[in-house]
């Protein structure tokens, strides 16, 4: 029994894309864009309404960033804020009947995770220089190179599969519960999934911060 349909389709040159995932992703992008634009349309020194809510979220995230990455990581704020809002809206959109989260596709979560880990290395090379940054792979001893490589590969894997597993499992269970017990319990699971969606977006963002902070630390 197939619960989710990604709508995989071959487009030009033998490349396969999941059309359903892409469509829902564009919807997520539109929603995030609309929310942020609505909140920042008329910026006030004394915030109110949507601006206040968005500022609270941003303040929360930048505060976490300052604690994890220090002040020099401040310029990554748009990255982290967008990541959080994108994942949050993605996760919660799966609650809407007839829609599926883009994050129930491993391509989305792994894409985000790979992007985060690549950002760490790009930033690390920019901040500390290529050789200094890469020297971390042979520390504390060249024998640790395999372990360090495994660690570096496991970072995006765990990041991606945690989010993917949580969201996909949540959606499958929602369908299964709906078939088995039509009342109350699917609703309760829906409420739980709502919280899980927020938490997973937050966990992904915080772990991204903590990985990114490695790019700013010199000795570790």
């Amino acid at each position, binding site marked *: 029994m197939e619960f989710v349909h990604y709508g995989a389709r071959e487009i030009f040159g033998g490349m396969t*894309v999941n059309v359903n995932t892409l469509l829902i992703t564009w919807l997520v992008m539109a929603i995030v864009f609309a929310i*942020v634009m609505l909140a920042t349309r008329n910026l006030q020194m004394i915030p109110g309404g949507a601006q206040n809510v968005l500022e609270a979220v941003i303040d929360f995230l930048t505060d976490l960033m300052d604690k994890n990455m220090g002040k020099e990581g401040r310029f990554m704020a748009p990255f982290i804020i967008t*990541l959080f809002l994108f994942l949050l809206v993605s996760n919660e959109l799966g609650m809407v009947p007839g829609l599926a989260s883009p994050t129930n596709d491993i391509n989305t979560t792994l894409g985000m995770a790979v992007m985060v880990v690549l950002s760490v290395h790009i930033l690390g090379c920019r901040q500390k220089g290529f050789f200094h940054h890469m020297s971390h792979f042979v520390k504390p001893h060249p024998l640790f190179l395999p372990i360090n490589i495994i660690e570096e590969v496991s970072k995006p894997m765990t990041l991606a599969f945690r989010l993917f597993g949580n969201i996909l499992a949540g959606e499958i269970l929602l369908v299964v519960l709906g078939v088995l017990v039509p009342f109350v319990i699917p609703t309760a699971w829906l409420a739980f999934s709502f919280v899980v969606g927020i938490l997973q977006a937050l966990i992904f963002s915080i772990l991204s911060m903590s990985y990114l902070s490695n790019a700013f630390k010199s000795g570790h």
Partner: protein
Amino acid sequence: MFNINMTLIAQIINFLILMFILAKFAYKPLLQMMEARRSQIVANMEAAESDKLAAAKLREEYEQQLADAREQAQQILERANKLATETQESMLRQAREEHERLLKSAQDQIERERQKALADLRGEVVSLSMLAAAKIVGRNMDSEADVKLVREFVEKLDDASGNRPC
């Protein structure tokens, strides 16, 4: 279910597009606004703090001035009290002196009057004695020698050693 394909690259591109659009149109002004607000709040709080300190200093100054004024008032009051006491004493002393002086002058005058009365009495006694003696002796006793004699007699009456004949 786990087939990884070009969607992965597409999602990264999607995310980056969203991030750059939002960063350009929303985050930059919003973060600037938040930073401006933060610095304004910090400045306001610092201003409030310095105002508070200035107010406390001013209050202390005023309290000091008030205490000084109170002390001065106390001093003035004490000086006035002292002056009043001194004035009272000096007036009393003057009054007492005046009283004594008046008393003494009155006594002196009385003494003078008494002496004068005594002298008058003495003259009267002399002339009365002369009259009486003339009656007894049967002749006029108005010669110089007689007056002298009687006067000597009367003055002997006052003598303290007093060989009084009577």
